[in-house]
């Protein structure tokens, strides 16, 4: 029996590190289907009024994740973007920087297939667990819970790198403390408007690969202006792992998130 949610068993964890993806594992609904016994009692009403929040299952799981993260002193940061914006590369370059500040990091990384990203991050020097989602285009709080319990130690900062996708992941709370959305300059400055659902939920927007700006017909100011219009509440930073530009501010923001989580959710005594 899974300790996180009571579903399935330990052998059925959702696509973690080469195990088979069994996302719909053992929820009674799937095994019983329509052959569930019929209750012939009760009134003959043709309508049944319900008021069920469909997202509540994910939201409750996300809340459990959040509480568990805080109980273990973990600050959770969700990292989102389209494929190829530089999420994994940024995290690779973040490992060493955080080590200088005595901060440990771990990564749960979602991809449709392969554990290449987790391997890259392990090579960079942090613990990483791959979540392979198969045909699912986003992570949900349940998958995160399964992957998190496979971590060998609790990191100070846990990055949850979502599947590269600017649409679907916006809807699902994973239990993170803050959301970072990456936008690489080669994607174009129109993306925050086109994929507004993603950008309006961001706490920080990192405009990546800014070293390429001289080769493009768009300026940093234009990126800043568009993102700021869509989400005036977000912090916006230019960054390039190649030149190191913005890395200091990124690390400072992470340390501030860590401090904020520490003050808001002081560690319990256990």
């Amino acid at each position, binding site marked *: 029996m899974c300790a996180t949610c009571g579903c399935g068993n330990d052998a059925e964890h959702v696509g973690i590190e080469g195990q088979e993806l069994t996302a719909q594992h053992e929820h009674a609904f799937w095994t019983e289907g*329509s052959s569930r016994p*019929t*209750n012939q009692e009760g009134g*003959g009403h*043709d309508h049944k009024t*319900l008021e*069920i929040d*469909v997202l509540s299952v994910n939201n409750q799981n996300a809340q459990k994740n959040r509480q568990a993260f805080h109980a273990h002193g973990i600050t959770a940061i969700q990292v989102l973007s389209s494929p190829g914006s530089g999420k994994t590369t940024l995290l690779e370059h973040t490992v060493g920087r955080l080590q200088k500040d005595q901060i440990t990091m771990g990564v749960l990384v979602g991809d449709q297939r392969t554990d290449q990203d987790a391997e890259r991050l392990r090579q960079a020097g942090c613990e990483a667990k791959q979540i392979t989602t198969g045909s699912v285009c986003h992570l949900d709080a349940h998958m995160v819970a399964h992957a998190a319990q496979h971590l060998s130690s609790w990191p100070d900062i846990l990055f949850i790198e979502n599947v590269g996708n600017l649409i679907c992941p916006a809807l699902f709370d994973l239990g993170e403390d803050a959301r970072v959305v990456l936008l690489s300059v080669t994607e174009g400055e129109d993306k925050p408007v086109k994929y507004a659902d993603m950008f309006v939920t961001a706490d920080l927007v990192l405009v990546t690969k800014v070293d390429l700006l001289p080769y493009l017909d768009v300026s940093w100011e234009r990126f800043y202006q568009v993102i700021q219009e869509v989400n005036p*509440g977000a912090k916006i930073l230019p960054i390039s792992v190649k030149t190191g530009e913005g890395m200091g501010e990124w690390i400072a923001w992470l340390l501030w998130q860590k401090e904020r989580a520490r003050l808001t959710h002081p560690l319990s005594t256990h």
Partner: protein
Amino acid sequence: MHELSLAIPIGEYVLQESQGRNVEEIVLKVGRLSGIVPEALDLALQVVLQASCAEKACITYEWQDGEGQCRFCHTRFSMKDVLDVCPDCGQMGAKILAGTQIRLIGLRFAPRLDTSPEETHTTQMTINNS
């Protein structure tokens, strides 16, 4: 295709609440800021509910406007899209207060077939004899 992830819990609730009765209609109340594409959710529900008592159910959407608060002048206003501008100051990027919800609000069942007293009696006799 995140609609499949929503169709799964909806399907679970529908089967749980219908208790085997044939479902003709599933009514959902969906916020306009939820990012739901009804065609995609219809398709996903078709997959989830196939070969069940709700496989022929139609899906009815009741759309609900969202609500936002301007980050500049703090006006609260009704939103149909996440990029709607504040009616007072014309700024985008309002803080979203409501409108991302997806609620299963009701089921309509097919008329129940009458069970004749004899049949009921026979069933009870069988149970008593076993």
